């Protein structure tokens, strides 16, 4: 732990943050819909200097044996060094895998996509929904940025054209994906018992632990993920859930306001 980390920890302990934000304050959130023409749906989400691009690609595949009448959801993340000098080339490491799986679970467990509507021929052909997460700039809180970008990309995705049950790559129809909720992940960070949202990279390097709570429009929780090597008390978990429901609602409004 270096001097800057210690400084940040002291500040937070007093309820202050390096860039003057309130503990429950996100950096500015900017969302761009469908910046990528070749993706069936895409979104660029900026939270302060953190930027994450998500592209949704659809293809036809065979369903899993235990869900023969449901589409398939697959989320993956590539941590290219373009986004951070800490990222290295090679297969996804544990942080990229965790990020993708937390985003995946938020989407999947919220049941915001009606997977049965993605069945083309039971037991044989279903839509495979690939959610590919590509951070462009890692300045902290990638999970929330990726989660928001994923749901916006899905909401704005249109199915490609089919001919003889084969995808005509590059041709989109007007049919959108059947998305009926907006799950939002809110990551609550902790330093010395103080909870705060949306850590930037310097803060993230200083925290004890984080708890990502994904909530739905009705306030239900659909995914939890604790990270890092600290711990939480029961009261802190309670408080974190409260914060995430509130901030999730705010972010959901931003997402909804885009949908025109």
């Amino acid at each position, binding site marked *: 732990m270096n001097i800057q980390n210690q400084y940040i920890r002291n500040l937070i302990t007093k309820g202050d943050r390096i860039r003057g934000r309130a503990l429950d304050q996100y950096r500015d959130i900017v969302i761009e819909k469908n910046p990528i023409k070749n993706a069936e749906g895409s979104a660029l989400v900026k939270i302060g200097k953190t930027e994450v691009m998500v592209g949704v690609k659809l293809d036809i595949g065979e369903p899993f044996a235990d869900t023969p009448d449901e589409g398939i959801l697959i989320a993956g993340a590539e941590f290219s060094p373009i986004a951070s000098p800490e990222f290295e080339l090679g297969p*996804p490491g*544990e942080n990229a*895998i*965790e990020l*993708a*799986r937390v985003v995946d*679970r938020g989407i*999947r*467990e*919220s*049941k915001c996509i009606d997977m049965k509507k993605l069945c083309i021929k039971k037991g044989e052909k279903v839509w495979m929904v690939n959610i590919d997460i590509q951070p462009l700039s890692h300045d902290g809180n990638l999970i929330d940025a990726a989660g928001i970008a994923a749901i916006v990309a899905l909401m704005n995705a249109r199915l490609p054209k089919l001919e003889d049950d084969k995808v005509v790559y590059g041709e989109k129809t007007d049919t959108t994906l059947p998305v009926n909720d907006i799950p939002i992940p809110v990551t609550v960070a902790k330093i010395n018992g103080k909870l705060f949202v949306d850590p930037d990279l310097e803060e993230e390097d200083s925290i004890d632990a984080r*708890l990502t709570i994904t909530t*739905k429009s009705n*306030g*239900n*929780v*659909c*995914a*939890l*993920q*604790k*990270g*890092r*090597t*600290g*711990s*939480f*008390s*029961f009261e802190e*978990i*309670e408080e974190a*859930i*409260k914060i995430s*429901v509130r901030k999730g609602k705010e972010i959901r409004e931003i997402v909804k306001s885009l949908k025109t």
Partner: protein
Amino acid sequence: MSNFKRADGRAADELRPVTMKVGVLKKADGSAMVSLGDTVAVAAVYGPRELYPKHLQNNERAILQCNYTMAPFSTKERVRPGPSRRSVEISKVTREALEPALFLEEFPRSTIDVYVVILQANAGTRTAGINAASLALADAGIPMRGLVTAIAAGKIEDTYVLDLTGDEEEITACDLPIAYIPREKKFTLIQMDGDIPPEDVKNIIKLAVKGCETLHEHQRKALLGKWSKEGS
């Protein structure tokens, strides 16, 4: 509360039969076997030992490395050997669940290596693995702030249900595993898949804590058993 009856006759807040043993693996510095019903995990601990290559060493503290693996024959459908995205994530959260209990700063430049193998799986493998790993760390004589215990809970119909089986996982409204240090009342792992109101989250966590306290007793007995045997 509903009239939901568990297929195996357990009460909603009852654990499956628990077996815990330490020192089960001959070649590890510490080891343990934990079974909860049909879920069986073994854990081995090596270290603290010097970390190689040296450029990975941390001059201020030990590194904790964890690996979670399922034996290919542990599940109904065979598991392909080798790491999967699931096993990489569980290895990570296992490490993060154990690390708060350790005094890593006491062993600079060292590594402590924890290996968990699931021999038989009927839900709750990550929590069984954490229970075993925590025991194996104690068995290896590594100083700890407290034992780490872990269990999952959920909600079926209107009933909060402790220690889900594979069949129950199919019908629960959520699957919420925790790791918990009873001595410190601290949560070191919290995950959840599901769709439930915040109030349920809290109640399910409380139920899981009860389970952890029971498991903690089992862990202490397993360690005492070892010690009394060694003393005899």
